[in-house]
């Protein structure tokens, strides 16, 4: 049984158009699902919906988000927050703004364990040191006393990873966790996330627009266009033969999988037209059903 099941989830701008169109996907326990699509396709929206941090300007209009057998959307807000806090975590995109600049690293990791999970402080601190060591941070003791601005971007992202895994969550949403880093650091961080995910057996919803990353980290994949899932498949199948013209075009547009930069093909207009027609059809379905 899947740990997370999103079932025909629709989100729209309050008083505006749809942002997510009947999105369905599942993440099994310990599975890594990639979420790809162009900028603005709604990848982050899905992650935010699961974690209960959708912006105020948006609202969920239909669907279910079933976490560990319980539909989150039917729970009272306090209970929903408690459940998400106890079982989920976020690895955000930008390590610059993801740590509070005016607080030391240590408390930022341990507060969560102490205040929310009720751990004794000593145990939380020991756990934080252990985790920092696990993400290859030399001298965890010193790092815990540092402020975020004293550390490099890669270091901060390691800390965020450690922090995300701290409470042994069952599901982590990683929203483009390597985009803000430079290329050499990206590779290390990616490897680290993969390693941590495997060791802890955590399910991962991995938002990215880099198919190369998907091929390295993910087992399953959802391709999004304008808030619509156009393909949901196993990663292995996807790279062998994408099931949708849009996915194929996306794949062709990714440098890794073409011979030369010159042969890079933008997504053809005919494909865009076809996928737009699908979006329109989905909207008609939604307004009828």
């Amino acid at each position: 049984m899947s740990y997370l099941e999103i079932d025909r989830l629709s989100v729209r701008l309050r008083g505006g158009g749809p942002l997510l169109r009947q999105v369905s996907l599942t993440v099994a326990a310990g599975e890594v699902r990639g979420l790809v699509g162009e900028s603005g396709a709604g990848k982050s929206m899905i992650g935010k919906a699961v974690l209960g941090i959708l912006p105020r300007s948006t609202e969920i209009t239909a669907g279910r988000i079933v976490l560990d057998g319980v539909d989150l959307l039917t729970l009272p807000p306090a209970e929903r927050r408690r459940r998400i806090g106890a079982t989920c975590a976020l690895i955000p995109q930008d390590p610059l703004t993801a740590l509070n600049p005016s607080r030391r690293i240590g408390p930022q990791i341990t507060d969560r364990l102490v205040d929310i999970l009720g751990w004794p402080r000593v145990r939380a601190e020991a756990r934080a040191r252990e985790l920092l060591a696990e993400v290859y941070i030399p001298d965890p003791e010193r790092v815990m006393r540092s402020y975020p601005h004293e550390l490099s971007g890669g270091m901060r992202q390691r800390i965020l990873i450690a922090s995300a895994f701290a409470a042994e969550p069952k599901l982590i949403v990683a929203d483009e966790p390597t985009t803000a880093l430079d290329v050499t650091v990206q590779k290390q961080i990616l490897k680290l996330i993969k390693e941590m995910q495997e060791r802890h057996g955590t399910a991962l919803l991995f938002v990215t627009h880099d198919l190369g990353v998907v091929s390295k980290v993910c087992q399953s994949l959802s391709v999004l266009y304008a808030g619509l899932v156009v393909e949901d498949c196993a990663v292995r199948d996807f790279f062998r033969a994408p099931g949708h013209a849009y996915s194929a075009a996306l794949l062709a547009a990714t440098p890794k999988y073409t011979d030369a930069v010159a042969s890079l093909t933008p997504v053809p207009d005919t494909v865009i037209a076809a996928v737009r027609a699908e979006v329109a059809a989905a909207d008609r379905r939604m307004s009828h059903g």
Partner: protein
Amino acid sequence: MLDGRGSVKRRAGARLWLSAGWLAVLVLAALLAPWITPKDPLAQDLFLGRLPPFWETGAEPGYYLGTDSLGRDVLSRILYGARLALIVALVAGSITCLLGAGLGLLAGFLRGWVDVLISRFIDIWMAFPPVLFSILLIAVIGPGLGSIILAIVIIDWTRFARVVRAEAMAQGAMDYVASARVAGRGRLGIMLREILPNVLPTIVVLLTLEMGIAVIVEAILSFVNLSISTDDPTWGGMIAEGRAAVYQAWWVLVFPLITLFLTVLSFSQLGEGLKDRFDPVLR
């Protein structure tokens, strides 16, 4: 790079210590006025009128900064004047800050209807000419310490509210707030533990600036005789009296003016200096 930072830091330190030093002297003067003033600030002696400061010919020993036209000791009056100036700065500054920053924080972080309510209120408030409003207020409830403070709060709370609201809003959009929400921290907890520490440097700067402004406002109101209607010396009152006889006795005007200037400057510099101290990125 290191050198550049080092020298900036040193200058910030000097600024902080100089301004804090001057304000500390004032606080001591205000607290100890009855014991350290060389003369009774209210004692008049027409035979000792318009004595020049100590370095000029014709000065009397004991009247270091000279006397005014009624023969009152300028230095003693300045020291006593610090009392009212500091009380107004402290009380008016704190109330303005608490009210304005509190509402701004709530509006900027909670958003939604709270923000709409507070923001509209600020807009409407600012549509009134607040200076007129407070002069009216003083005319109605009469001059006095309370009405000066009230007038300052009325005029200035919106500045705190608007600046703090904008900052809280910017901080609220940061990823660390999202992480805290995912972890299950409540709104109040996020506001106090995550947002407030980041807005604090700005609040401190605004507060010290406000204290300086309060000192000026009090001086202006004394100057136009709308302040406290007792004989207690005030800097503004001294400046007003000194103005009348500036060609015969410049010191009656100049010394309180310098004191006022240094005090207001110190408040603003203290704010900037503290901000550098507070801000972990600049530290």
